[in-house]
């Protein structure tokens, strides 16, 4: 059905959402236009295209796009569509080329998107007053592209706000991740894990800062790791990273309440801060030394003691500064979502740091491992449970009104509060009904 502003408004109350936001294909299509077609969406990290001519292809709100480095300064993001008949110009996921060539008729483009050659000759278009320099002969540019400390975001809305401002306090999660490199430099490395989910994208984005699920949903893995860990590595000995990574998922309620959650404008949020499930990883002496050499003891301590759990840049980007991995959200359909996990290398840090990040990714984010599958199953069960028409609403009413302003200009609450979800849906409704939305639609 076609939803009007009124319909949409009625789908989100202060403390609950209508089940249709997760299961109705028409809502999903609107989200693609009004949320994913308006917000800043994560594209890639600059380290993935270091040299002029390096390219990387991905999708933006399901539309194929092409990221190309033109030179030191310029990184261009194009719609991956030939100016001729509209074929995807680049099919490979990444590579390097001085000229971008379309396979169908061989038109070529420069890394700035301008047309370099037209098979059969440009004179064919003379009667139209067109040459290969005419704008319509070049690759189309995505309206907005900007990057923050190497993280490239794009928006399909030409009037999107400035990126840094839009990120708000979540920018500090990125800062902290960068600061953790003795050289203040991150590098995407170690490949990617692409995890297909048969459920709506919002389940994932809600789950990351859902402090109450880990100790239950991941009990079979984390509790088991604790038991085996205790047996093999008694008090006084140091458990290996595998145990240090898995065991904290089974921390008790108080632990997760204490981690706390923090919400900000535009639907952003993070959990943890003073502590998180990453807080008690063994230090790596060589790394600490490298950090102190650059930052000094105090600042190093500051950096490393910032222990955020998950940071969510709504709707597409999430990161874990303490373990240097990011997870990117790629909606496919109302009940289909791909989550990509990328690992970031702390340039200047010992390999051991990277190895731990890689290990973390394997254990938590691989579709073949023992943590992600239980989250996957939870989303799957909601996707199907919500088919029941007995109840319309899903409540997000834990600790309504109990949030307190924090000094970053957002609000904080105890870990089990639904504040983060309420904040996400306030933003959701804004996008879905806002003036911007209307403009957003004209864009397509």
């Amino acid at each position: 059905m076609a939803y009007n502003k009124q319909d949409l408004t009625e789908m989100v109350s202060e403390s609950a959402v209508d089940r249709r936001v997760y299961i109705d294909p028409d809502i999903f299509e609107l989200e693609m236009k009004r949320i994913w077609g308006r917000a800043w969406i994560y594209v890639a990290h600059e380290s993935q295209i270091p040299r002029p001519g390096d390219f990387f292809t991905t999708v933006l709100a399901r539309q194929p796009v092409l990221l190309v480095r033109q030179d030191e300064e310029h990184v261009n993001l194009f719609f991956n569509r030939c100016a001729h008949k509209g074929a995807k110009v680049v099919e490979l996921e990444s590579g390097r080329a001085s000229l971008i060539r379309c396979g169908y008729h061989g038109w070529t483009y420069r890394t700035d998107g301008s047309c370099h050659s037209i098979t059969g000759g440009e004179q064919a278009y003379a009667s139209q007053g067109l040459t290969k320099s005419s704008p319509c002969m070049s690759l189309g540019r995505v309206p907005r592209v900007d990057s923050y400390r190497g993280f490239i975001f794009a928006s399909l809305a030409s009037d999107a706000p400035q990126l840094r401002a839009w990120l708000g306090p979540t920018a500090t999660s990125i800062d902290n991740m960068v600061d953790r490199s003795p050289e203040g430099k991150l590098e995407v490395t170690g490949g990617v894990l692409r995890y297909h989910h048969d459920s709506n994208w919002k389940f994932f984005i809600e789950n990351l800062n859902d402090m109450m699920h880990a100790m239950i949903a991941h009990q079979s893995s984390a509790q088991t790791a604790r038991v085996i860990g205790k047996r093999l590595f008694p008090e006084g000995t140091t458990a290996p990273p595998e145990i240090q990574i898995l065991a904290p998922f089974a921390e008790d309620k108080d632990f997760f309440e204490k981690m706390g959650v923090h919400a900000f404008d535009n639907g952003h949020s993070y959990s943890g801060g003073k502590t998180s499930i990453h807080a008690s990883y063994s230090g790596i002496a060589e790394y600490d030394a490298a950090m102190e050499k650059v930052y000094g003891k105090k600042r190093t301590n500051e950096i490393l003691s910032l222990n955020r759990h998950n940071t969510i840049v709504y709707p597409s980007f999430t990161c874990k500064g303490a373990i240097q991995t990011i997870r990117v959200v790629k909606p496919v359909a109302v009940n289909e979502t791909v989550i990509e996990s990328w690992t970031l290398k702390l340039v200047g840090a010992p390999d051991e740091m990277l190895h731990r990040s890689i290990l973390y990714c394997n254990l938590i984010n691989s579709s073949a491992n023992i943590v992600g599958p239980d989250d996957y199953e939870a989303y799957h069960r909601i996707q199907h449970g919500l088919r029941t028409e007995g109840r319309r609403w899903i409540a997000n009413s834990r600790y309504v009104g109990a949030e307190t302003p924090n000094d970053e200009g957002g609000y904080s609450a105890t870990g089990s509060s639904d504040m983060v979800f309420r904040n996400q849906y306030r933003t959701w409704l804004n996008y879905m009904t806002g003036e911007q939305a209307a403009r957003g639609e004209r864009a397509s």
Partner: protein
Amino acid sequence: MRAGPTLQALEQYLYREARYIDEKRWDEWAALFADEAEYWVPASRGQPDPKNHVSLIYERSLLRDIRLQRYRHPNAMSLQPQPYSVHLISNVMLDSFDGDSGVCVVNSRFIMLEYRRDEQRTFGGAVTHTLEISDKDWRIRVKKVELVNCDSTLGNIQIYF
């Protein structure tokens, strides 16, 4: 310096390993692996190592223990209902055998049908077993599974290949 294993003996050994998985005889299956033996499913083609690049699975004894324990846990949501498998092992070839160390490298192909909750899926790829063969027993030192779609977008995988 001992004689090499026959292809038939190797085949029967790989069949047995696969059968343990299909029949969920996890203790017997685990017992086939040498201490700290690796079970590795790379996430990209020709992936050089499991430390600097993500893998779908990279396990040694510790993680294997945890996974097998988890199989028995009453609250393993994603294992209710259980997944089931059938493995076909074929194209078994002996790539190398060192008579002194008794180490042999065996190449094979497999297809696994996995079934859970009314959905059947097909997985397949090449497998390289590094075995330690002695007269008294055979042990797996490395099992490397190269899925034909290792770098694909994949949903939950909860059975060993």
